[in-house]
């Protein structure tokens, strides 16, 4: 019955992530900073997805990542698809470098996650620039990246604390 319990564990893992991502998405949508001059909030869905990829024993499968990221894009109303593309790349990178990051000190992991988010934003801006689309001002993006970086430690703790569905390999 080893196969079966692993399968159930993976499903449970995914269900927890989907629930948390839904909460994060809705929390990000709360109409508080409606005004244009207001600070953009952190991207809570991103930190959850990355924390899951990095810190869950089984990692995060491609399909769930794409589905959640596209859903977030669609509900938020911004450019579609580019952040998902960046997240696929980030997931590949983390699958290769994740072991070193987990073994190293946490601040390094934290910094890497923040830099990766900055790269995601840069990719989005380049895409918008190539498509002759208007882009948000730089300070707004900088605040967005910083706040998202600040939101990572709680998400990482959550990925640790949530009941593990799978046994560590």
């Amino acid at each position, binding site marked *: 019955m080893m196969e079966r319990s692993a399968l159930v564990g993976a499903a449970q893992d995914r269900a927890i992530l989907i629930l948390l991502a839904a909460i994060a998405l809705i929390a990000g949508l709360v109409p508080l900073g409606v005004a244009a001059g207001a600070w953009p909030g952190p991207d809570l869905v991103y930190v959850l997805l990355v924390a899951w990829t990095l810190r869950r024993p089984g990692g995060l499968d491609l399909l769930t990542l794409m589905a959640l990221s596209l859903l977030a894009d669609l509900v938020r*109303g911004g450019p579609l698809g580019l952040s998902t593309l960046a997240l696929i790349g980030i997931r590949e990178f983390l699958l290769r470098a994740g072991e070193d990051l987990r073994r190293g000190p946490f601040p390094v992991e934290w910094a890497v996650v923040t830099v990766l988010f900055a790269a995601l934003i840069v990719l989005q801006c380049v895409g918008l620039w190539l498509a002759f689309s208007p882009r948000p001002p730089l300070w707004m993006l900088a605040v967005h990246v910083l706040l998202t970086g600040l939101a990572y430690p709680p998400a990482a703790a959550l990925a640790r604390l949530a009941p593990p569905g799978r046994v560590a390999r």
Partner: protein
Amino acid sequence: MPAGRNPVPSLGRTLRLVILGGAGVVCVALFILWRIESPRVERVRAAIVDRVAPSLEWSARPFAGIVRMIGDFQSFARVYDQNEELRRDVQRMQSWREWAQQLEQENARLRALNNVRLSPRLAFTTGEVLADSGGPFRQSAIVNIGARDGVEDGSAALDGLGLVGRIAGVGQTTARIVFLTDANSKVPVVVRPSGRRAMVAGDNSDAPRLDFLESVEGITPGDRVVTTGDGGIFPPDILVGQVALLPNGAVRLRPAADYRRLEFVRILRVDPSPRIEGPGGLIQSGIPLTLPGDKVLPDPVAPGPEGG
């Protein structure tokens, strides 16, 4: 790639690369589709927001309420001062109300003299703001009224005072408002009283630009800016805001709508008055006209098979 480590590309590895490449292509294709502003993308988006909206309603609203209460609590300390201030305001407003009533009566008299017909087909539906865009890439909000309530793409959205934005994306029970401050928003306006025309173009800042203004002559800070109704998207004469002149000579708009306290939004429903475009049906070429002597007279005004 060092050849010694992986001499023969295994099937699993190739498959993995193919899957990754496929996922990447899907993402890029979605982006291109979005950029072309395919209405289909917007429809999918509206349908998904429709699904999400109920959970937004019971989760986001209490949360927003709590945060607002904290903000209000901070102003508790000044409650006495505020009371005094409000009392003074009420007194001032009473005199204003008198004046407004007098003006209203005068207006009614003048209108009766003039026999003016003021766009009788203008109606509005009021909705509550459920969510903002949750990111820096779009200045928009989701309201809890949609196609079911008669909201249409392109309708004007107002708060109590002025124009907030336009509707872009309508679901059954939700709709998305793109604010004036969004970088994709362009609204033709006219500056009163000078009558100069301009375009309000958002750039993600608090105060949108006033583009295509021929000259700033005769324009002073504080001038009213209203919609022109050009393009047939918005009805004319909706208050948009006031002119603000920056020290460096740039002209910007201070929106009349209060985005910081945006809770309820009115969506205008306009049934535009029929326009006369081209020749009328009777003298239209191609329709066989029969002489009065004949029995059958084709009715050019009769609706087609679609029923109009």
